[in-house]
């Protein structure tokens, strides 16, 4: 008994000592933790809306349960396969194109022997990353609009009629891919540049002495050096495959291109805040989130086998 009490006392003392030492740190964190509690964790309770016939007046708890009704509505709707299909196709194509373009661009920069030109191209290539999608939409409009667009002026000169680039299902995805690459390739290449800069120059030197050509040095030294970074980034990007880019598509799309451009996130927005179908919107969002989270969890396991974890 005495021993136990003494032990408890020691524990308490230790806790008090730690608290005495660390309380200012907890106080510092307080505001941030309140933010996370209110705006990140409290809404997680709100996913119950997905299983309810939600009425704002009755509140989340007061609204009647409907089981999986909202999910059934979504999975039996005609939108379902189109939304999932568009989401996966768009994000997968973006993933492949942007991975390869950013590696390609980094290699080009690295092989460029004109230093000032290289610096200039780099500076210009990072810039679009900081422009909003609305601004990029404005630029696209200047080039693609049917009435006064730059491209359509040329097309009209050649063929006599304009192409509805921004509102046609034929071109919409292409437009998404191109603008995505235009915006982010430069920025995404920075990480590969940083890996390439870290390669031991002695390797190149030795290879040159052994008679390796420029091309052989790229294939046998530079590419292997960035391979693990490439694989890590690809694994991380696969975990985000359910995000096809709401920010971009919401700005670019219109009802004419729902067929090729409507994705899960845009539907969640329309169903929820435009049509006020709260339960349905939340259910679709939850479905997407659960898959996304599972992917992150699995890919993190795979990444850990590679020796580095995501967290």
């Amino acid at each position, binding site marked *: 008994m005495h021993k136990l009490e003494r032990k408890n006392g020691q524990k308490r003392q230790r806790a008090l000592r730690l608290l005495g030492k660390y309380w200012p740190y907890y106080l510092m964190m307080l505001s941030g933790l309140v933010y996370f509690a209110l705006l990140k964790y409290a809404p997680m309770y*709100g*996913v119950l809306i997905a299983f309810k016939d939600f009425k704002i007046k009755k509140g989340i708890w007061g609204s009647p349960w409907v089981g999986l009704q909202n999910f059934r509505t979504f999975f039996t709707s005609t939108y379902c396969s189109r939304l999932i299909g568009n989401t996966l196709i768009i994000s997968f194509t973006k993933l492949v194109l942007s991975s390869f373009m950013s590696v390609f661009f980094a290699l080009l*920069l690295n*092989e460029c022997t004109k230093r000032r030109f290289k610096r200039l191209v780099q500076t210009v290539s990072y810039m679009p990353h900081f422009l*909003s999608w609305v*601004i990029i939409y404005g630029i696209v409009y200047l080039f693609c609009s049917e009435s*006064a667009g730059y491209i359509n002026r040329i097309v009209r000169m050649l063929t006599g009629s304009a192409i509805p680039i921004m509102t046609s299902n034929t071109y919409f995805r292409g437009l998404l891919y191109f603008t995505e690459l*235009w915006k982010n390739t430069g920025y995404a290449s920075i990480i590969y540049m940083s890996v390439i800069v870290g390669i031991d120059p002695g390797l190149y030197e030795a290879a040159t002495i052994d008679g390796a050509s420029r091309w052989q040095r790229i294939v046998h030294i530079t590419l292997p050096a960035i391979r693990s970074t490439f694989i890590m980034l690809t694994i991380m990007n696969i975990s985000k495959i359910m995000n096809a880019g709401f920010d971009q598509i919401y700005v670019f799309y219109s009802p004419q291109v729902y067929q090729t451009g409507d994705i899960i996130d845009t539907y969640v927005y329309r169903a929820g*805040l435009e049509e006020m179908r709260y339960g349905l919107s939340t259910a679709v969002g939850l479905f997407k989130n659960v898959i996304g989270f599972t992917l992150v969890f699995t890919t993190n396991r795979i990444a850990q086998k590679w020796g*580095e974890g995501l967290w």
Partner: protein
Amino acid sequence: MVRAKTGNRIRETGSDRVINAAVLVLLAVLFVIWFFPMLYVVLASVTPYEDVVRAGLLILPSRPTFTAYSFLFSSTGIVGSFLVTLTVTIVGTLLSMALSILLAFPLSKKGLPGRALITKLLVFTMYFSGGLIPTYMMVRRLHLLNTIWALIIPGCVSTYNMLLLRSYFVSMPDELLEAAEVDGSGPLRTLVQIALPLSLPVTMSVMLFYMVTYWNTYYAYYYYCYDKSLRPLQVVLMDLIRSATGEAEADEFVPTITVQMAAVVFSCVPIVCVYPFIQKYFTTGIMLGAVKG
């Protein structure tokens, strides 16, 4: 690298010269693809409307005019929205930086009880969220709907940015911070006087990330606000562009493409101004982020 290049020059073979030329040509093409659209927007905004519509492949503003800009400032409400966005950017960046730093610094403290648990809880929110409607309900309950705070608070701490700061603080030598504390400096003073000045590259890049995010505020308005006086710059810009594509309200004027491009240029100005100063910092930020995932 430098040594490799001298080696290059000695044994420059035919195929090497081909690669050199191909690299230059490809980079030049990419440069044009990136640079020309931006240049063209600026040119279109200072060229008389008739010239833009009639122009061939190149616009050369032989008689540059700023009528598009004067029209933009006088009759589109863009000035008010500029002030909204400016307020959101300044207040938001300050708030975001304060909250993120105040979370990151304690979480970098190795002995802090609960450190691993709290970090995990915060990281979890990067991968799972309640979603749009539940967050909307929360913003509604906090009585933030249709106030300027709705444009700032819901996204005010980015876990990713917070982790960037934290990993930089973690990499700082312990002795330095502990020495300060032995000298009687409290944690807050250690943070402000020692940790922050030493982490300038990462602090600056995180600040840039926040500033750009706030400057580009767009969706938050559609999610949480309806009052026209709260429209951020990007929303007004989008309305200006859309209005010519047939989605304008009937009573609104139809802006010409020159006015639209003037609006695009105007919306970019702050980013273009800040960009050169911060360019040298953000590469550091990205590399850190890459290491930490």
